[in-house]
């Protein structure tokens, strides 16, 4: 690059504008993308623009970096990172080091450099801003600032680790920014110290930047100042060193298992980097980052958390050709735990809610749930009294079917009893607006059967909400045999309206989520019969990445329900002329209920003992009743049994047309039933298994030989693997 290269040749995506005071405004504006990203083009031109600044240094008094888009920068190009394998390590290292060099050249320009953060700055976008001597943010409701890399199995390798540690200190950088991966609003970013200053008027952003430059002509980064020390100290300081041994351990306690590579490398890069100069710290950060980029888990997480989720949110499962729908009035039948939660999310989304139960007290109790949630939110400053009153006023607790007059949406959420469901729905149908969506919230009951007797079965659909409704992001939409495309399209729109991520499945017993999770539970329960210590089973699950132990979960769901579903499934299969093989879990569940009277948490006793409804340790009787106990089993085998049991059933769901897409399967398993996040979802688990689907098939056969035919890989998968394909 020559020093007098024309401004427009080497960095066309960076506007270059010099004012009378010699302040250069560099405006990012990628002509090929709706947002600025740290893609190949950016990296190339960013290095060029930095060199341009150095070339013109004598003529300029400062630099403002801003964006022509509504956002500042969206960060790294995930598509690019998705495919990296260990063979790409040298190339990835070069890319990262190239950005490090350019960013370092920028912050050591010897002139004040202000990031005018006019909109959201995430990941690499924020890392760019951190390499400026001042960050001024535009305080808009949509601006978000953060380093979300860890949620994609990565770490902020563009200087994000190194500079936040130097800016905030090890403890705050790790616990408030890097490990959370949280994107925060402008005010919170200011408080954290990620932004230095806020302006509210967009027209004031660049003037504020220029003013700061005029007032700080000699600005340099704190870490390039003589005598600088990292806030809170370095690992060489006894105070910091004393806390270090517990740092991985406390994270492992939270994770309930080994650290994910991203967390491990992030913490390691932060601590190791804090012991050396900034340039070496950046080098260390790059090495830890490249390992993650080239590893499998970041691929899994990027695929599921970004691409699969994006496909769903863009409406991949929504039939084309129907106008966007917005529900205005909903009748929620049943004000129990589920109904109360559904009423809350609907009211939040602006619907008028009629919450109907058999007694007014019950209906009011259902509304009280929303009151409690709001009081807590107001107390925590997440909402205002006014917002609370507005939303609560939308919920009408009632016993009268007539109050549902004109509702364009009905969501039934009564006890899982087909007759009851049909009766309460029938009672309200006459009052609904014509063409209203009629939804039944059920976790297992076949929708097609429930739709029988409904005058317009095309309007009928299943909506499987997850508990607690206000917290769980997933909605499993179940399409019955007669459900119309129009109803499906509207239901997907309603899901968006209430801010749920919808997956669409075809009607079948247990749909997708309930059916697949029961494989996990049954596998764990079968291990009890084999004399595997219960504590080992729970550790196997949580260390595999499940959010809760399988035995704790089945206690929560209740062993009785587990048995009832099994019996119904067997009966239904028998009616269809099929004899299902008996899962070894069945005998354990039977003995637990019939012999020991331990039906789960609600019964006050299950695989765990309970005191005041809280788990008080595993039931010691398990060791004696299902002995002899085998100690020291390798967890790996147990974990793969759990993961394979679910994955194989998910493949069957694809085969049987229960699942309509791989993305639905992955996202549903992650958001709905706690399938370990690192896998990228229950079907991606098959793709990413060592050796790909072929490796999965081989291992499945091995497990089938050892534990039973339930592990035999479905023919479709065998065929796919033989052709070298992946589940897509």
């Amino acid at each position, binding site marked *: 690059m020559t020093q007098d290269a024309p401004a427009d040749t080497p960095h066309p995506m960076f506007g270059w504008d010099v004012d009378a005071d010699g302040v250069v405004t560099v405006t990012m504006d990628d002509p090929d993308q709706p947002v600025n990203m740290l893609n190949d083009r950016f990296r190339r031109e960013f290095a060029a623009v930095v060199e341009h600044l150095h070339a013109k240094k004598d003529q300029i008094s400062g630099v403002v970096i801003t964006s022509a888009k509504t956002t500042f920068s969206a960060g790294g190009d995930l598509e690019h990172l998705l495919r990296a394998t260990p063979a790409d390590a040298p190339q990835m290292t070069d890319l990262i080091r190239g950005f490090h060099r350019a960013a370092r050249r920028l912050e050591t320009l010897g002139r004040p450099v202000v990031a005018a953060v006019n909109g959201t700055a995430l990941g690499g976008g924020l890392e760019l801003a951190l390499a400026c001597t001042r960050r001024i943010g535009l305080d808009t409701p949509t601006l978000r600032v953060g380093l979300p890399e860890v949620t994609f199995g990565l770490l902020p390798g563009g200087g994000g680790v190194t500079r936040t540690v130097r800016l905030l200190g090890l403890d705050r950088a790790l616990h408030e920014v890097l490990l959370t991966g949280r994107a925060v609003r402008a005010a919170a970013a200011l408080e954290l110290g990620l932004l230095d200053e806020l302006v509210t008027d967009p027209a004031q952003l660049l003037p504020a930047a220029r003013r700061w430059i005029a007032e700080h002509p000699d600005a340099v980064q704190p870490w390039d100042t003589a005598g600088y020390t990292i806030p809170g100290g370095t690992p060489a300081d006894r105070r910091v060193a004393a806390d*270090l041994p517990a740092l991985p351990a406390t994270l492992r306690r939270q994770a309930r298992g*080994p*650290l994910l590579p991203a967390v*491990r490398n992030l913490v*390691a890069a932060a601590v190791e980097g804090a012991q050396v100069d900034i340039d070496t710290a950046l080098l260390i950060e790059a090495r830890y980052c490249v390992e993650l980029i080239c590893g499998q888990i970041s691929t899994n997480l990027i695929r599921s958390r970004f691409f699969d989720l994006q496909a769903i949110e863009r409406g991949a499962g929504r039939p084309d050709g129907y106008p966007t729908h917005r529900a205005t009035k909903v009748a929620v039948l049943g004000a129990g735990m589920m109904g109360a939660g559904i009423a809350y999310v609907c009211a939040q989304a602006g619907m008028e809610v009629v919450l109907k139960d058999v007694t007014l007290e019950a209906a009011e109790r259902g509304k009280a749930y929303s009151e409690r949630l709001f009081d807590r939110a107001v107390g925590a400053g997440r909402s205002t009294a006014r917002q609370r009153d507005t939303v609560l006023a939308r919920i009408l607790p009632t016993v009268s079917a007539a109050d549902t007059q004109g509702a364009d949406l009905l969501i039934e959420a009564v006890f899982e009893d087909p007759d009851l469901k049909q009766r309460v729905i029938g009672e309200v149908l006459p009052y609904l607006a014509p063409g209203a969506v009629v939804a039944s919230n059920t976790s297992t009951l076949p929708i097609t059967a429930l739709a029988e007797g409904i005058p317009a079965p095309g309007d009928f659909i299943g909506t499987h909400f997850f508990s607690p409704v206000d917290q769980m992001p997933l909605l499993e939409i179940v399409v019955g045999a007669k459900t119309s495309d129009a109803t499906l399209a509207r239901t997907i729109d309603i899901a968006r309206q209430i801010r749920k991520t919808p997956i669409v499945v075809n009607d079948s017993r247990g749909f997708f989520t309930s059916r697949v999770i029961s494989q996990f539970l049954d596998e764990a329960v079968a291990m009890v019969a084999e004399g595997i210590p219960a504590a*080992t089973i729970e550790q196997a699950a949580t260390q595999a990445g499940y959010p809760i132990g399988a035995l704790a979960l089945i206690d929560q769901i209740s062993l009785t329900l587990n048995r009832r579903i099994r019996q119904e499934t067997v009966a239904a299969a028998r009616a269809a002329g099929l004899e299902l093989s008996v899962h070894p879990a069945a005998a354990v569940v039977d003995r637990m209920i019939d012999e020991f009277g331990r039906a789960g948490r609600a019964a006050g006793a299950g695989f765990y003992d309970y005191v005041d409804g809280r788990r008080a340790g*595993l039931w010691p009787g398990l060791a004696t009743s299902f002995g002899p106990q085998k100690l020291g089993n390798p967890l790996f085998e147990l974990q793969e049994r759990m993961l394979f049991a679910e994955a194989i059933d998910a493949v069957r769901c694809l085969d049987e047309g229960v699942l309509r897409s791989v993305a639905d399967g992955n996202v549903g398993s992650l958001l709905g039933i706690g399938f370990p996040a690192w896998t990228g979802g229950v079907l991606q688990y098959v793709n990413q298994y060592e050796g790909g689907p072929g490796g999965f098939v081989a291992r499945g056969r091995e497990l089938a030989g050892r534990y039973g035919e339930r592990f035999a890989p479905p023919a479709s998968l065998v065929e796919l693997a033989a052709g070298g394909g992946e589940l897509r």
Partner: protein
Amino acid sequence: MPSSPSAVPPPATEALIFDAIRTPRGRGRSAGSLHGVKPVSLVVGLINELRSRHPGLDPALIDDVVLGIVTPVGDQGSVLPRTAVLAAGLPDTIGGLQLNRFCGSGLEAVNVSAQKVRSGWDRLVIAGGVESMSRVPLGSDGGAWMNDPETNADTSFVPQGVSADLIATVEGFDRETVDRYAVRSQQRAAVAWSGGYFQKSIVAVRDRNGVIVLDHDEHMRPESTVASLGRLTPSFAAMGALGGFDAVALQRYHWIERIDHVHHAGNSSGIVDGAALVLIGSEQVGRDLGLTPRGRVVATATSGADPTIMLTGPTPATRKLLGRTGLTVDDIDLFEINEAFAAVPLKYAKDLGIPEEKINVNGGAIAMGHPLGATGSMLIGIALDELERRDARRAVVTLCIGAGMGVATLIERA
């Protein structure tokens, strides 16, 4: 596979133990009697004692001074053994070697010295160890094992106290069992002290003016009972819960639901200051200088076990040691195992089937304290004294060690 005794090459010479002496152990805090004494001075005092006990000991023939020091920083840094050589006015030709195998350092110093001699490459070596825990706290030297997050996470690091509680939980040693062991350690130490069993080897620490600073182990609490110990609060429960270490331990020992935190200040080794020296030389140098051998180092072994449970290394180390010598537990008259925590000797005795009357017969570190780098050398002296008192033949000395190592030494009376 343990190698057969015949596989051990014949030595150039036996490694003879001419003497083994030690300071009393002072409480390892600012109020402790030895806090006002430099660690190098503890060593110099013992060097002077060796010279005055053995007038024939020609310093010019000493090849090396090998000392175990677990936290070799600050007062204990800069190769203290060489510093001690110079401070004691020994010839410039004598080397100094500081070594660290955590709690096994003092025994490793004996083993390395014996190996130097037995190989024929050195003739006379002063082995030993020193630790002023009141001046240089444990852990002051950092290290990747615990302070580098990657290494820490990958090796499932937990502090020793949590490991000791894990051993107790896995083995089913309840609070009463470990407390009973602790009381026995105190009682046996009290009997040994009052019976004068240690008299031959304890060298009072004196100040620069010759005034006695300490002439007895000041950590002991012979009045302890199971009831009195029962009132003490577990030391590692809070650390295990808040620091996340219980979770880490249970993730590895997954068949256990929770850790029973049974160890406390009364059934764990005392934090103390102290030093010990062992004079080791060849048969020839003994004859030349007129030194009378008291015993010999027959064999040494190091081994290791899982670093998370950490303190179970003495068992594989001892098995290796016995395998090398073709001996069994029945052939050994005395076992000395460092009482880092009560569960450690209990597990060791259980693993190897060692009867109570052969193990730590004069008490141990629970009663008298564990000056990290010095303890192994102290145990050699204690074992040798007791073999002589009983007119017995063989003793095995062993220590559990950080990160899961074990070290063991077989000594025999000359």
